[in-house]
């Protein structure tokens, strides 16, 4: 039965006016409720040298003491340490994963420092891609481990970016949302800070590093994002210790010459960072990771595997066709290899057979030869035996004849020998 679907043309979607309250304005609330029951995932990657204050800043940002021991400077290479925590605030559950780069910037040869980081980020994308490509998949419950934000800690030298920083950021900018921050900002004086910030931003721009742009297309957040973007990179100070200021306890660092308050906007940009990272743009960071960085990775990966969207005639390829074509190709190759192996095997067997036959023939020949020689010898021996027998017979005859003669001769000879003996005796005397 033919199915004909009559559809209105897509361009003119009629806008209807409602004459009463229908109630679908609760749709966003339904969505929010669903998200709340699922919980949110947020993964932060902290890249920076050992001792620059990554763990302290995380503790300060999330107002919790995440248990960790400070790392040593003796690491042979950069490795990433990921730890997950579940935070709960009112009815929102957040699965927070903090990934630390241990040993970054400690080696003598820092050429490969960025590699473990890039590999880790790619591995997370790969895991998500594998889950998405499964036949029976559960993306709904999938624990998303893709990095949503990368906080790059810049050392507060006061001059400019280090080349290690530039190289690492360049490698990471197409894979993750980079938010550069100046760590331990309480070591920089106010006038130096301004110059430092503008130097960093101009270096980033001139090297083409794409850092995360706070979204300005939504009216509600455009203004705050625009004002905050001016202060990039944020100069932050982290502290988990509380100092009594006035009559309140506040997070601060106490120096002999004064107190640096973490949450004081005049002292550092910590509050701005918290606003931007958590309170205003968390969802946007997650969305950018999914729609931009992950899609880019997916596209590159699938193209690498040989899938295309359109074939040379620009007819859309279906993934199923590609799968089948690849599968047939693979099976064909497999069959060819099997054939080859089989033929080689047969050849080898034949060779071995021929060898063995040759050996057998040789053995037979040898045996024949031996037999012949043996027979010849036997014949010789028999001949000799005959000869010998003949001789023996002859001898016997001779002996018999001789004995006869002897007996005859003895009789006649007895006289003869006496005469001879007398003659001899006569001569000798």
């Amino acid at each position: 039965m033919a199915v004909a679907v009559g559809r209105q043309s897509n361009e003119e979607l009629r806008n209807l006016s409602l004459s009463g309250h229908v109630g679908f304005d609760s749709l966003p609330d339904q969505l929010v409720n669903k998200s709340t029951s699922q919980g949110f995932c947020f993964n932060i990657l902290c890249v920076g040298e050992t001792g620059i204050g990554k763990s302290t800043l995380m503790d300060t940002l999330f107002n919790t003491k995440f248990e960790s021991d400070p790392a040593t400077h003796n690491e042979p290479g950069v490795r990433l340490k990921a730890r997950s925590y579940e935070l709960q605030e009112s009815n929102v559950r957040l699965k927070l994963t903090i990934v630390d780069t241990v040993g970054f910037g400690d080696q003598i040869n820092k050429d490969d420092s960025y590699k473990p980081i890039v590999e880790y980020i790619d591995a997370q994308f790969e895991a998500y891609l594998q889950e998405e490509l499964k036949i029976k998949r559960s993306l709904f419950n999938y624990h998303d481990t893709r990095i949503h934000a990368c906080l790059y800690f810049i050392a507060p030298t006061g001059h400019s970016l280090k080349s290690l920083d530039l190289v690492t950021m360049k490698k990471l900018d197409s894979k993750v949302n980079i938010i550069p921050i100046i760590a331990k900002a309480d070591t920089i004086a106010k006038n130096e800070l301004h110059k430092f910030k503008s130097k960093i931003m101009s270096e980033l721009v001139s090297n083409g590093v794409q850092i995360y742009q706070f979204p300005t297309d939504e009216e509600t957040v455009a203004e705050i994002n625009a004002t905050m973007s001016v202060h990039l990179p944020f100069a932050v100070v982290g502290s988990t210790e509380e100092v009594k200021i006035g009559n309140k306890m506040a997070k601060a660092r106490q120096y002999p010459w004064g107190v640096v308050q973490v949450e004081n906007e005049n002292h550092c940009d910590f509050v701005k960072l918290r606003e931007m990272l958590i309170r205003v743009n968390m969802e946007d960071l997650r969305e950018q990771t999914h729609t931009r960085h992950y899609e880019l990775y997916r596209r590159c990966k699938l193209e690498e595997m040989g899938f295309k969207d359109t074939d040379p005639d620009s007819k859309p390829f279906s993934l199923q066709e590609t799968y089948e074509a690849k599968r047939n190709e693979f099976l064909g190759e497999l069959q060819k290899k099997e054939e080859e192996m089989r033929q080689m095997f047969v050849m080898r067997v034949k060779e071995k057979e021929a060898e063995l036959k040759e050996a057998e023939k040789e053995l037979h020949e040898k045996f024949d030869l031996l037999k012949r020689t043996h027979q010849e010898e036997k014949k010789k021996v028999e001949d000799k035996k005959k000869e010998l027998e003949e001789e023996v017979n002859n001898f016997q005859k001779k002996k018999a004849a001789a004995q006869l003669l002897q007996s005859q001769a003895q009789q006649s000879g007895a006289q003869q020998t006496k005469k001879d003996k007398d003659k001899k005796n006569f001569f000798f005397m």
Partner: protein
Amino acid sequence: MDPLRRSPSPCSSSSRPPSPRTPPPCEAQGYVGIEAVLDQVKIKAMKMGFEFNIMVVGQSGLGKSTMVNTLFRSKMWRSSLPSLGVPTLQTLQLQSMTHVIEEKGVRLKLTVTDTPGFGDQINNDKCWDPILGYIKEQYERYLQEEILITRQRHIPDTRVHCCIYFVPPTGHCLRPLDIEFLQRLCRMVNVVPVIARADSLTIEEREAFRLRIQKDLRTHCIEVYPQKCFDEDINDRLLNSKIRERIPFAVVGADREHLVNGRCVLGRKTKWGVIEAPTSRT
């Protein structure tokens, strides 16, 4: 399955660090501001707009178009009366209409698919095939978009989210056509059965009819929305079991307004009274 207590277990790959352990959830000691993410989600959702696709299935004359108009309080459809001179359609033709409606800042792109001619022929064998084909086609379209290499940012969702099935108010039980159709469809799409033109049944008849239909659905293993297997937690289960008691809903559609006791209400005016459409007594 409890989504709360699942510890993250990412699949391993060579360069991955050992899987992180989850300590028990800790309460942040001060205000961090995590719950602001809910507002962010809401703003994004409202900016994107929502899409909803309904399909109404039932024989002609059961009040499908009127029902849709009543639900969405607007003149979506003019109910069509088949004129006597026109021969009945040999093939089942599905008709879709898309409208954008807005309420309190929430934009909803609503698509209603009608199935005129369903169950109207003398031989209704396989009359559900075009409908199943249509639903599968929408799924196929979405899948094709999803497996492209360069995907769109937001894939347009034309999949049928809900199918409202109109059961004629015979008062007895489900007919074989109903059972066949519901059996096939409940596995593919969310089906909501409703008793059409419920004003032709008295309240006792209605309750008896409802119970019989529920029994029929159970006997034939037809899982209508909300499905038991998708209940997530105890709250969902409580809410859904209440809803399940009332399935199938007995509805009356009306799009004309009448004056009752000085109030203007939507209803059907008959010789013995006015039936108000939107009341809590279903």
